[in-house]
């Protein structure tokens, strides 16, 4: 029983988005790719429970999200640096623009409670609607909205506080100036 070609294609099409979500969620490329792999394994094993008229991508995100959560609960007992290993595991050389900006951003993301982080990533990064995100997280739409808001607020605080001056140059400009070696004095 091979996969329907359309199902197979839909799965592969979802992979880049799944990786983006998993990398941002876990902060580690290798761990994220393992998560995506395990997601595909489970999806194929349970392909019978996939409703053809529904969104393959959302279904896969649900599986990945649940895998991450159970793994997270397991790992919590161990000492873990959620952001550790990201740079070492980068496959491609850092791009000139934005690397430092992303680093700073990822560090801030890692400080968010997992519930808030996943909600923000699904809505702000993956582009799901609040309703879709609520279905993926198995919670109420209002809960997703409040988690996203709190995540945004906390991120803003974290990134602003890092500037040391809430009205100072925004962190992006500063990061780009630093990256291009012009410094900010």
């Amino acid at each position, binding site marked *: 029983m091979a996969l329907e070609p359309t199902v197979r294609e839909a799965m592969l099409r979802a992979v*880049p988005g799944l*990786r983006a979500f998993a*990398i941002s969620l876990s902060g580690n490329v290798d761990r994220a790719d393992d998560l995506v792999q395990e997601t595909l394994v489970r999806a194929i094993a349970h392909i019978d429970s996939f409703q053809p008229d529904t969104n393959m991508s959302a279904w896969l995100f649900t599986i990945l999200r649940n895998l991450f959560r159970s793994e997270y609960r397991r790992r919590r007992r161990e000492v873990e640096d959620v952001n550790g290993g990201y740079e070492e595991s980068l496959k491609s050389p850092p791009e000139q623009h934005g690397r430092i900006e992303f680093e700073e*951003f*990822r560090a801030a993301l890692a400080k968010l409670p997992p519930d808030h982080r996943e909600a923000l990533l699904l809505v702000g*990064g993956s582009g799901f609607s609040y309703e879709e995100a609520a279905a993926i997280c198995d919670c109420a739409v209002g809960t997703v909205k409040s988690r996203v808001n709190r995540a945004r607020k906390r991120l803003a605080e974290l990134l602003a506080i890092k500037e040391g001056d809430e009205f100072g140059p925004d962190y992006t400009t500063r990061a780009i100036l630093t990256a291009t070696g012009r410094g900010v004095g």
Partner: protein
Amino acid sequence: MVKAEIIPTGKTPGLLNRHVQGKIGETLRAMFDEIVNEGVPDRFSELLGQIESRVSEQSKGSTAGSEAGAEGSDRPPCASNGDKEPS
């Protein structure tokens, strides 16, 4: 058509906050785009084929062997307990 209904609550933090919020959204999308643009690593397309055959072997049970032999490849299918020749 789209009416901007953003009315500051009367305090500067609202303005600053919106600025930072905009940056957060941009950074998040840029971060995702960068990864999405890497496309599908070979690992996953290969994996999909492998899982498919593994899953179908599991679901087909004992009939799995007959297909593998049909191509007449010089490599034996994955070593299973019984087939291995003692060396």
